[in-house]
């Protein structure tokens, strides 16, 4: 499970960073940019990370299936963990503003 989480989240982080760099000019403050980056990471990023995993490492699902994890369980748990991380970071950003 941890291996799946790590692989998907690496894609998620890469997508979040790319999006953040690509849209840098739209922001006039670092905290607003960070806030949106964390939102993307927590809400859409995991979905895009899962799509990337499906594209590049799809066959690996059979390892998890044999270990008793369904695709739905893997995706839900990964998304929930990243959502919790995003909420914590958003809280920190709001407090520091």
């Amino acid at each position: 499970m941890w291996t799946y989480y790590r692989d998907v989240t690496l894609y998620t982080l890469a997508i979040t960073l790319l999006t953040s760099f690509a849209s840098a000019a739209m922001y006039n403050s670092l905290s607003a940019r960070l806030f949106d980056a964390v939102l993307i990471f927590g809400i859409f990023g995991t979905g895009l990370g899962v799509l990337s995993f499906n594209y590049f490492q799809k066959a690996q699902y059979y390892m998890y299936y044999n270990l008793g994890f369904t695709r739905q369980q893997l995706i839900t748990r990964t998304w929930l963990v990243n959502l919790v991380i995003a909420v914590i970071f958003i809280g920190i950003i709001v407090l520091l503003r």
Partner: protein
Amino acid sequence: MKKELQLHNVSKAFGKKEVLKNVSLSFAQGEIISLFGRNGSGKSTLLKILFGTLKADSMDLRIDNKQVHPKDVIPKQLIGYLPQDNFLPKHLKVRDVIPLFYKNGADQDLIFRAPFIEKVATHKVGTLSLGELRYLELLLVAHLEHPFLLLDEPFSMIEPLYKEVIKEFLLSLKAKKGILLTDHYYRDVLDISDRHLVLVDGTTQIANDVSDLKRLGYLK
């Protein structure tokens, strides 16, 4: 008590092409059955349906006469499956992959001490030969606790030395598992299986020997 898996009336069509037509089969722990068929005959489709990763148009799966929903096969770890495609993470070392499958040290040792594994333990999965990789995948899946095991081409790309080790290993597994095996290396499959089925035009036919495989159009 030995468990028995029964599959009844599996049908599956892709568009207008009916790949499986009311296929039924059964096998029990302590038994290896082989499934032959020409390319595209539906062997892998049938295995994926049994494993629950492909939805059938109709099917009735039972273990010891109790109906099993296909969605329960994976979470309840009722059936193990070695797919045709390699599935281990290529960036990990063999010694790091084994603990993903087995938390218990004694179980890990069982894999580490298997023939050929010790010498590749420090290698990355992506650098293993196809034979080494296939053998490692088989060991990892087969030692899990599933009472039934589906093997899709376990002998594919395997060198003769590994083949003999795999055959011995599968025969040793028979005591605790029911195994359904499909592979085009028919002599190796015939060597170790107790019963043989051939998928012809979407239905299963019983074969007893090579002459039956010829009669059913699998061999010339």
